[in-house]
Structures are given as C-alpha cells and as structure tokens.
C-alpha cells in the first residue's frame, strides 16, 4: 500500500566536536520519506534541519545511526547522482550564461551536446525562463536566479530534490509566487522533495508532510500529515483546515522551546 521509501533514517545522530566542547546537531532522528512525498523540515535556527538535509546529501556524515537514500548509503547515492540540491543562495557561476549554468551538471556528468541542449530547454521552460538562455546571472532578479538554480538541479532528472531554504532570501511576494510554481512543478514531475524552511505558511502550503524540529539537541518533535488537494492555490491559506495545521506546527515549535531559554 505505502509507496517505496526514498529516505530511511534510524536513530541518526551527529555531533560536531568544537573547541567549546561537543555540539549535538542531531539526536536520535527517525524519519521515512516515501516516493512522491513533499516533506518539509521546519524549526528555529540551530535545530539541525539543514544539517539533516546535508546528511541526506552526504555533505555531512552522521556520527551514529543508519541512513539510506534510494536504498544506498548517502555517499553511494551521491556518487550515483541520485539527487539534485538547491542551496539557500542561487550559487550560479557569474561567468556562465544562464544556459551554461544549467549545463554545468550535465557537462560534469558527461551528457552529449544534443542531450544538453534539449535538457536546458526543457528545464528552463519548466521554471518559466525560456528566452533568458544568453543572459548572465547578474542580469536576472534574485527570484529568477533561484529558479535557474532549480532548473539546474532538475537538469539531470533526479528522482529526489533537496532544497535548503531556497526562497529564504526573497521577499514575500516573490516567495508566494515561487511557492505556487514549485507546487505545480512537483505535481507535474512527481519528484520526491525534501524542503527546509523556517516559514510556517510556506511549510504548510507546500508539504504533504511537515517535520517539526527543535534545537539543542537537534531532534524531531512532531510529524504532521496534511491532506490538502494537489491543485491547491495560495487562497487555501485562509481556510480553517490550513490554519489548524499551521497552529499545530506553531504549538510544536513552542513546545520544543519550552524547556529552553
């Protein structure tokens, strides 16, 4: 019945040894992400949400516990290029045009020139940026640049898309628009998305599942399923169902803080 699991974490812990003693970034995290899920990690800064995403991407290594990505260890999954990663900043290469930025992973992974052209077109079209191929990054707005970085992550057609606060640096109007576009994109491409955010409306609007996290030590304190229709629009944010979920997230975040401070 349940879809195949894409990410499976069991008792995952990560401790950074620093000069001021150990920092418990993640503690006993258990998590399953199914194929086609849109999962958000939400929590205050320092709760380990980005660290968890980086462990999935093999940019950090867990010190304890087990994690599998596509039934592989994260380093194997990374070598097999199982995921696309979108960072907080667009991280476009300023000396490359938009099309050549999207081409970067394709070049590295050895796609043919014809295949590259086709994929650049398809993915720029997917993020509504057709016509900007020959522009340089500085000629685009911040929101457009972040869409290029999404197109770049999608270019190699990964089943899994990891997004680390991709819209955090954008203003609210642009962010709303991109949320809507991302949701449509998710519906169309049927990717599994893991999304890190600190915005409650963003998490509730986008996700099929919300993972609420809490700091010191970084851990999961609640997992909330949402059952909004797939073709929802931004208006859904005014509905009682939406507000109920948002309330539960807020409660969770508050609870996580209660025996701190």
């Amino acid at each position, binding site marked *: 019945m349940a879809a195949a699991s894409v990410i499976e974490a069991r008792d995952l812990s990560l401790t950074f040894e620093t000069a001021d003693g150990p920092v418990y970034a993640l503690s006993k995290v258990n998590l399953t992400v199914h194929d086609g899920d849109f999962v958000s990690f939400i929590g205050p800064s320092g709760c380990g949400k980005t660290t968890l995403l980086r462990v999935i991407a093999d940019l950090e290594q867990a010190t304890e516990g087990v994690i599998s990505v596509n039934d592989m260890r994260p380093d194997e999954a990374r070598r097999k290029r199982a995921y696309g990663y979108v*960072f*907080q900043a667009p991280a476009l290469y300023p000396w490359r045009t938009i099309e050549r930025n999207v081409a970067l992973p394709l070049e590295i992974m050895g796609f043919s020139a014809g295949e590259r052209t086709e994929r650049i077109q398809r993915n720029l079209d997917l993020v509504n940026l057709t016509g900007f191929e020959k522009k340089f990054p500085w000629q685009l707005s911040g929101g457009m640049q972040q869409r290029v970085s999404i197109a770049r992550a999608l270019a190699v057609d990964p089943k899994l898309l990891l997004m680390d606060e991709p819209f955090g640096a954008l203003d609210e109007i642009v962010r709303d628009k991109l949320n809507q576009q991302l949701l449509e994109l998710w519906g169309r491409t049927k990717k599994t998305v893991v999304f890190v955010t600190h915005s409650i409306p963003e998490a509730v609007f986008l996700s099929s599942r919300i993972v609420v996290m809490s700091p010191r030590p970084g851990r999961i304190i609640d997992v909330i399923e949402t059952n909004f229709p797939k073709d929802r629009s931004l208006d859904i944010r005014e509905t009682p169902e939406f507000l109920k979920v948002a309330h539960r997230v807020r409660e969770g975040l508050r609870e996580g803080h209660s025996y701190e401070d």
Partner: protein
Amino acid sequence: MTLAATASRPTLASVLASGSVLPVAIIVLTTILIWYAAAVPMNKVLTQPLIDAAGGGFYDTLSVSWSLPRPVLPAPHQVLAELWNTVFTVEPWRPRSLLYHCWVTLSSTLLGFVLGTLLGIGLAIAIVHVKALNRSLMPWIIASQTIPILAIAPMIIVVLGSIGLTGLLPKSLISMYLCFFPVTIGMVKGLTSPDPMQLDLMRTYHASTSQVLWKLRWPSAVPFLFTSLKVAIAIALVGAIVAELPTGAQAGIGARLLNGSYYGQTQQIWAALIAAAVMSSGLVWLVGFIERQAARAMGTKS
C-alpha cells in the same frame, strides 16, 4: 541656433577643467621645470669654470648648464635629442639603435614572464591541492624573494654559462625567478576563492578534482591572475635589466645603462631609463587590455 552650437561644443577651457588633461599636464610641466632647474646646481662642478669664462651672467649659466656634452644631469631636451638620434636616425637592427637594445631586453622579459607565469600557476595548483605543500613549499617561496636579485644574478649567469647556457635563457630565468612569486601568491588566493556553497555544489555532482579545478577554481581565479600578471610583467622587465648589469652583457637596456655610466654618457642612461619605462607601461597596459577582453567574455558587469 549659434547659441545651441556653442553650448554643446566644449570649449578648450571646459575640456581642461573637466577631464584629466589639466592635472596630467600640470604634473608633466612641473616635473620638466624641476628637472631643468635641478640641472643647474647638479652640473655646477663641471660648469663653474665655463660659466665664469662666458661672463657669469644668468643667461650664460643656463645655456652652459643645459648643453654640456657629458653632464651630471642632462637637461630634458638633451635626453630627447639622444632618444631621437638612437631611435629614428639608425636602423633598428644596428647596435647603435636603442630599439635594438629594447628588443634584446624585451625578448628575455617576455620569455621570463611566460616561464614565470607557468611556474607560478603550477606551484599554486599544487599548493591548493596538496595541503602538505602549503606548509613545506610556501616558506621557501617567500624566502626566495628575500634574497637580493643583484646578489644571485651573477651566480646564476656563471653557473648556467659553465654548462653552456648563455644569452637569452639565463636572463629569462632571472626574470622568471622574480615574476613567478606574485603569480603564485595571487593564484593560491584565487584558486581558493570559491565559496563553500559553490564547492558543495560540485560535491553534489560528484565532480572530479580536475573538473572542480577547470570549471570552478580556474574561472574564479582569473581576476586574481590578471592582477598578479600586471605586477609580474613589470618586475620581469626589471629582472631582465638587472640580469644584463653584472654580466657585462653586450646588448640590452642593462648594457646601455652600464655603458653610459662607464663613459659618463648620462644622456644615454636617461634615454635607456625612459625606454624601459615606456616598455614597462606598454606591457602593463597590454595585460590590462587582455584582462578587459577576458572580463567581457566572462560576462562581467561593466
């Protein structure tokens, strides 16, 4: 109608006041005036008897001070005359031509510059990729630049001469010795300039070390490279001239300087110095020009 025309056409005064013409002209004029004025007391040891013989007036003082055949400090027009005679009245392939000497120095400068740049880039790439080299090689690289080049240039020339290497190459090696340093320092900085996020991005693609180097580190380092190259090409020229000094070279700017001082031909020394300065600015300008072309090709916001 005429009013509009006069308003739009810039007058001489407005051009002088607005652009850089006026400041540049003032500096040049001041320099020349100081130079002319300085020639009088500087040449006093030689001119005093002549001035007395000519009558000792103000006009005699100036005319004698500014027209000595072997002055301590030649007047600007004497240097200009020397430049004119050695550049425009002799075929450029004759040893009497200053252009011939310029070319001798320029060729070893350019060869040394190319060798130094390649060495500098090679060292920087090695240092960036092998952590141990940063600790073990860097102190030697820095120490190499604390040795006065004038002290080791003769040794290098003699050692290389004993194994049969003479002429262009030993001089170029001294240029190389001087100019690899700024390239190494600049490129180590440049190759490590990509931010962690851009490096993480490459990691998510499972990019190889050479892909990271050529697709990320190298393009990031280009602005640093050109800054280093401007320094490097200027000191490559200095290196080539210095290499000609202690070795009794027969040709080159350095040989001109040495000859001039042997025979008290100060005009010749000054003409050679001016030629070196012109070459040096030309080379730095050329590097800057290539830099601007590269920046345009790399989409830099202009």
